[in-house]
């Protein structure tokens, strides 16, 4: 399958949005995303510390990172390019595994501060609906679509019936 095979699929079917409100100003959250020494402290699930992280934090700059799982083996590195940076407001970057033919997703993180609290919105646009999970071991799956949410409800309804 060519790298951009999914580009014709509607964007709405390739999106996923996660939001969270933090009791902290936007500039601290922006800081936590913009320097390796900070990112290493929180990125990834418990038990999968970031053991390699390089960032050229500017528009057009590249970043890469890797996590080490409980086996002690460093996992496949992933990374991409910073596409847009608005200090304390927004970071847009591509993200994909360093594997031949691996597709890149586009991630947009926005920070909306109000009364000292910050709403963080993490939006993922996947390259294709069928974008493959290549890192399931680390709980990191390159995935799919908000259109699936309704199906998850259907599955949940079937389970409870």
């Amino acid at each position, binding site marked *: 399958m060519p790298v951009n095979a999914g580009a014709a699929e509607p964007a709405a079917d390739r999106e996923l949005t996660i939001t969270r409100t*933090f009791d902290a100003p936007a500039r*601290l959250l922006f800081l936590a995303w913009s320097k390796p020494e900070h990112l290493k402290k929180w990125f990834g699930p418990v038990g999968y510390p970031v053991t390699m992280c390089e960032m050229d934090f500017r528009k057009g700059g590249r970043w890469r990172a890797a996590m080490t799982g409980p086996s002690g083996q460093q996992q496949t590195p992933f990374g991409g390019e910073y596409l847009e940076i608005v200090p304390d407001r927004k970071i847009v970057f591509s993200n994909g595994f360093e594997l031949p033919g691996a597709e890149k997703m586009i991630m947009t993180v926005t920070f909306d501060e109000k009364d000292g609290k910050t709403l963080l919105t993490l939006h993922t646009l996947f390259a294709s609906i069928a974008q493959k*999970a290549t890192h*399931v071991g680390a709980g990191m*799956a390159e995935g799919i679509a908000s259109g699936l949410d309704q199906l998850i409800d259907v599955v949940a309804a*079937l389970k409870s019936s």
Partner: protein
Amino acid sequence: MEQLDLVFSALADPTRRAILARLADGEATVTDLVAPFDLSQPTISKHLKVLERAGLVSRGREAQFRPVRLNAAPMESAAAWLGDYRRFWEESLDRLDVYVKDLKRKEGRHASKRRRR
């Protein structure tokens, strides 16, 4: 193509998702499915073939009606996959919450030191 790819490709289409949602209410014949969609029977049949190939539906054996029914298992693996991605970020954001509170506390300490000077 792997099974999960077939499932995701099948789920990519809104008509096919609507067909699955309809089948979640119970099995249906092709005629039942044609009625609410304003699509021709061949079009619906084509969608059903895609869903069948992905293992999302199965057809009965009765030659004339061949009712279509939903198979939930492949959808559950697709949902589990999406869940993995979401969980990755939810857990990261839990840790970010702890970390950013720590940053805030440290900053507060520095600020009060400055005030004392």
